[in-house]
């Protein structure tokens, strides 16, 4: 038997992860659904948002971090909803305090509400400020190679181009652009946002990216827990297919059964 290609694990900011699927914790019905879907996904890195606390109005409100405890998962606070570098940096400082000094963050600075497209100018500014403050920055960006390289040069620990707009479920819109980024960068490249179903995730992984971050594709499925399990398999299958190396495409058929020895 020929030797099977061995995969090297995903390493982000010096920490090794066995799962290449990262998931968000938004849009779930309740904490229990969040917990079950997160578990079924096999993800080890879970994104959260930072928002104002209820100040006394709802004292019994359940805490998200009880469903996804930081002792079990790597919590990745995001800067969702930020439209300026200053707001993003401020959010990250609060997140670091919230998580007892944990400094891994997902930076996203948005350009407009309709597309939720990254504002790469503000993103670059924020990345510089955060790296100076010793944050480890996983950065959401466009599928533009020049910007991706610049974010790497600034010191981001992972660069995460979008597959398609956040929450759109359209799948990878610019596979060749994503491949440029994968080939040129040394830090992990992950697809963040835009995946809709399992085949999108597998397709993304087949491009050679290091991982996929998704939220809506799981949380907005009719059965989020089952979709989480499907995504886990899709990401693994896509990775294996990438490592295995796909067959060349041909325009005409090529018989799988031998032509020699036919008796008819």
């Amino acid at each position, binding site marked *: 038997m020929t030797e099977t290609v061995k995969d090297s694990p995903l390493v982000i900011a010096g920490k090794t992860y066995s799962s290449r699927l990262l998931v968000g914790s938004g849009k779930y019905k309740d904490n229990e659904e969040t917990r079950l879907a997160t578990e079924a996904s096999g993800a080890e890195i879970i994104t959260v948002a*930072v928002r104002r606390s209820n*100040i006394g109005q709802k004292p019994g409100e359940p805490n998200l971090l009880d469903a996804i405890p930081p002792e079990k998962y790597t919590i990745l606070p995001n800067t969702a909803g930020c439209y300026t570098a200053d707001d993003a940096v401020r959010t990250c400082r609060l997140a670091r305090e919230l998580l007892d000094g944990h400094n891994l963050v997902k930076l996203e600075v948005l350009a407009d509400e309709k597309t939720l497209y990254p504002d790469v100018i503000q993103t670059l500014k924020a990345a510089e400020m955060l790296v100076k403050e010793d944050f480890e920055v996983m950065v959401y960006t466009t599928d533009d190679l020049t910007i991706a390289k610049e974010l790497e040069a600034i010191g981001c620990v992972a660069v995460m181009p979008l597959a398609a707009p956040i929450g759109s479920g359209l799948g990878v819109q610019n596979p060749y652009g994503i491949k440029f980024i994968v080939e040129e960068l040394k830090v992990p490249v992950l697809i963040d946002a835009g995946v809709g179903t399992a085949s999108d995730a597998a397709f993304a992984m087949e491009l050679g990216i290091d991982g996929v971050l998704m939220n809506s594709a799981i949380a907005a499925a009719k059965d989020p827990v089952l979709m989480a399990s499907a995504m886990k398999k899709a990401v693994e299958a896509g990775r294996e297919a990438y490592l295995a190396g796909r067959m060349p495409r041909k325009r005409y058929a090529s018989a799988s059964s031998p032509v020699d020895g036919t008796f008819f």
Partner: protein
Amino acid sequence: MEIIVNGEQREVNDGITAAQLVEDMQITAKRIAMEVNLEIVPRSTYAEYTFKPGDKVEIVHAVGGG
């Protein structure tokens, strides 16, 4: 004196500490972070930290998000 907590004006006792404010709001046991006038107030300093009139306080926690 008045301070602003999460965007709302709030009447509090002079010299109130961050620890007392958190207790009044029944969020003592929660994982939170606090910022006053854009500066982080570390949780370890809540007992000594006292507010001044007009302070803008933000108290945040983790919620579901992508």
